[in-house]
Structures are given as C-alpha cells and as structure tokens.
C-alpha cells in the first residue's frame, strides 16, 4: 500500500503541492487527473524518489521513502516499474536491448533467459519482430508500448504511468489502455497513473483522484467521480470553460 501524507513542495516560492493526502491500495489502478501543469508529474516524481518534499511523507508498505537514500531507496525502486511520459527509451539501444536492459543490469539471469523474457514482454505488447529497430525508427504508439514492456519486464509490484497516452490518436489511446488493463489482470501490479484522457480513463481506473491547486479535491471510484457535486471536478471532466478553474 502507498500512503501520501500532507505532502508539500514549492519551487522558487511557487507552491505546487499544498498538502497532498492520498492512499493507493495494493493491486488497484489509481488514476490521478488534473490540469496540465497542476503538479501531477511533480507528485509522481516524489513517488519515484526523484524529488524530495518540503514536508510530508510517502509511505510504501509503511516505509517513509522521502527519508531514504542510497541502497535503501534503491531497494524500494527495485519494486517499481515506470512508464515515462515520452517513453525515456535509451536511443542508442535497440527496442530489444531497451527491454532486456533492466534484466541485464539488475538480475543474474543468463543471456537465454533474458532473451526469452524480453521477447515474451515484446509479444505481450504486440511488438514481436520489432526488437532490432531503434526507438527513432518506430512510431509514437510503438514507443509507448516498448516503454510499457520495459517497465514490466522485471515484474514489478508497483507500476507508475506518466501520461502514457499523451499525443496518441484515439484508437491508439484505447489500445494502450486495453493493454494496461490486460497486463494488470495478468500481473496484478499496483498501478498509479497520471492522465487527462477523459472519459477513457474511467474505463480502466478502479479509483480516480482529482488534483487541483496542489491538493486532492476528490477521490473515489470512476462512477462517483463522474457524479461528483464538486464544481471543480465537473468542470474538469466536461472540459467546460466557465467555472472555478480558470482557462489560462
């Protein structure tokens, strides 16, 4: 279980996170929605230990990761898989090498076992036969799928998705979401996703949290969020120009 307690973060006096409190249950798919530039990716970077909060805690199975450094933090990160917004694929490596990379670096598996697992994951994301290509030779949708394969190849307990469908056409958005649902059902990882693909995310989320002005304004199952009485939530999910959220 992941618990975020009263998390605050400012950059040069600008308060980005102003007391985030959030629980993510083991095995659930939690999707964090909110406006662009609203602090979703900053929150995600705190989960990953890439940023440290000004105050507050993030507990992963009871361990406060905001105080960890070095090997102790690495031990928590070894349980993570991360799909970055742009994929963050290593552009000097082929698709296969990108997927095999975490196994080569972090496990004692033999070459044959690594090849087997990497090809299996490439198969699960529908990229059999594409392993020899470089990231700049494949489409945006394929890059996202390679990133998902790389994040899942070590069979992590917790997977973070940072806007995994941004910039894709609606069919690819649905294809990636379907892929995430299928993989989640097979592997039962805990998923924390940052996205603003509305209404598509309501099909895959088990719970949704709305981040606005540095705080979580509402959390609940997709149906509850869709029927929320909060004018902020309603304006955001319907994309209306008029309301408490200023369209700047």
């Amino acid at each position: 279980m992941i618990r975020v307690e009263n998390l605050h973060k400012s950059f040069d006096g600008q308060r980005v996170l102003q007391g985030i409190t959030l629980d993510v249950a083991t095995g659930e798919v939690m999707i964090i929605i909110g406006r662009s530039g609203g602090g979703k990716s900053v929150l995600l970077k705190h989960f990953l230990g890439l940023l440290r909060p000004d105050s507050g805690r993030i507990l992963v199975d009871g361990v406060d990761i905001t105080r960890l450094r070095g090997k102790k933090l690495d031990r928590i990160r070894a349980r993570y898989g991360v799909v970055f917004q742009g994929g963050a694929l290593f552009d000097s490596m082929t698709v296969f090498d990108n997927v095999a990379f975490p196994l080569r670096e972090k496990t004692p598996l033999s070459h044959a076992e690594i090849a087997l697992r990497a090809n299996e994951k490439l198969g699960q994301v529908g990229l059999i036969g594409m392993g020899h290509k470089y990231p700049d030779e494949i489409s945006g949708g394929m890059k996202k799928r390679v990133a998902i394969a790389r994040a899942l190849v070590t069979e992590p307990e917790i997977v973070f998705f940072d806007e995994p469908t941004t910039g894709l056409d609606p069919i690819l958005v649905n294809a990636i979401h379907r892929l995430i649902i299928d993989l989640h059902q097979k592997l039962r990882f805990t998923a924390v996703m940052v996205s603003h693909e509305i209404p598509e995310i309501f099909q895959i989320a088990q719970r949704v949290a709305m981040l606005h002005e540095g705080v979580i304004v509402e959390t609940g199952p997709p149906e509850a969020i869709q029927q929320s009485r909060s004018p902020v939530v309603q304006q955001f999910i319907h994309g209306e120009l008029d309301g408490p959220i200023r369209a700047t």
Partner: protein
Amino acid sequence: MMPGRAMMPATMTTGLLAIEGLGRLTLDTVEALGRFGLFLGHALVWIFVPPFKWKQLLQRIHFIGFRSLSIIVLTGAFTGMVLGLQGFLTLSRVGSEAFLGPAVALSLIRELGPVLAALMVTGRAGSALTAEIGIMRISEQIDALTVMALHPMRYLIVPVVVAGVIAFPLLTAIFDVVGIFGGYLVGVRLLGLSEGTYFGEMQSFVHMSDIMSGFWKSLSFGVIVTWVCAYKGYHTGHGAEGVSRATTQAVVLSSVLILVWDYFMGSVLP
C-alpha cells in the same frame, strides 16, 4: 527599529538592492562551484564502487580516443610542420638551425601537444558528450536509469572520466610524435637540415622530465574536459535551447580551463 524600504530615500534603496544582488550572485556562484566540485568528487568515489562498467568504458575510449585520431593526426602534422618552418627560419637568422629538432620537440612535448590535443578533443568529443548527456537528461533517460536503481554517476559519468584519463595522454603522445615528424618533413626533407642533427640534438635536449610534464598536463586535461562536459550535460537546462547552451558553455569553459590550468602546471612542473 529599521525603517521599511518604502520609507527609505531612492538612492539608499538602490544601494541596498545592489548589495542584495551582489550577495545573491556571490551565494549562487559559491553554490554552483560547490555543485561542480561535488560532481567530480562523486564521480571519483563511484570509480571504486563495484561493479565497474567495463563495456561503457570501452565504448567511451572508442568515442573519445579512437574517433579523435584523424583530427589529432591532422592537427599534429600541421602544427609540427609550422613549427619546423618558422623554427628553421628564425633559428637560421642566428645560425642555430641545428637546434630545430629540440625546439620542435620541446614545444610539442611540453606545451603544444597537450594543449592543442585537448582543445581538439574538446571540440570534437567534448561537445558531443555534453549534447548526448544533455539529451538523455531532457528526454528523462537519466531519470529512467535512476528509477531502475542504476546510478547514472556509475553508468554514465565514471566511464567518461576514466576514458578521458586514458585517452588524453595517448592522443597527446600521438600528436607529439606526428608533430615531430611534421617538423622533420619540413626541416629535413624540405629545407635541407641534416637528419642526424634534427634527431641527434633532440635526443640531447629532451629529457624524461619534459615528457612527464606533458604527460601530467594531458592527464589533468583529460579530467578537466570530461568533468566539465559531463557536468554541463548532466545539469542541462530545458529543451533544445538548454542543450545548445550547455554544449557551448562546456566547450568555452573547457577551453579556458585548459589554458589557465596549462599556465598553472607549466609554472609548477619542472
């Protein structure tokens, strides 16, 4: 009680703002220098933390060393030829052309070889290194390494610094040898100096301390260039403009530090 800024005369407020700005600039500079120094310190510590990334080291030696060979040979040859030509013309005015060999060799081994080789490698490999690491930073590849619990310092920076320490002295040695033969081509083959005089006098005047002076310089330039270029790439700004600015800064700072450090080493080494 101190009066508020609004109640102060305009000249006093301007003075306070200037002092505040100077203070901020000083603090920022000290902080930046501290980060810069700590970066190298961390890299040096990570060299001794196993497992060492041998494959990445070989790739970096190939990139910094082998792929700089052609530019080193070319610039070394022409530097030696220019030294041969100008040295011969100058020395012949005072009837000392016999000392062309030592003049070319000492200029190259003690000074021009390490400095020019380092400047050439900075332009060819250093700038590319900053751009590569900078692009990895802005495309989140460095973050990806971090969250995979693979320390970027071990994976990216240590192989670069160690490759610099290995490649720079070797490239400098090649630059020196090619330059000496460039001087030989012009002085002996073109202008008619005796081959025995050129190499014989060189043997008499060039000592091991001269070679070691050039070696220590090239070794330290290897650290300086890889340190500056890796640091600038690692701490690059946002977007393509950030990478472009980091690359320019890396080349300019490396070049300036090479010249400053060369003077310092030249005045300290025997």
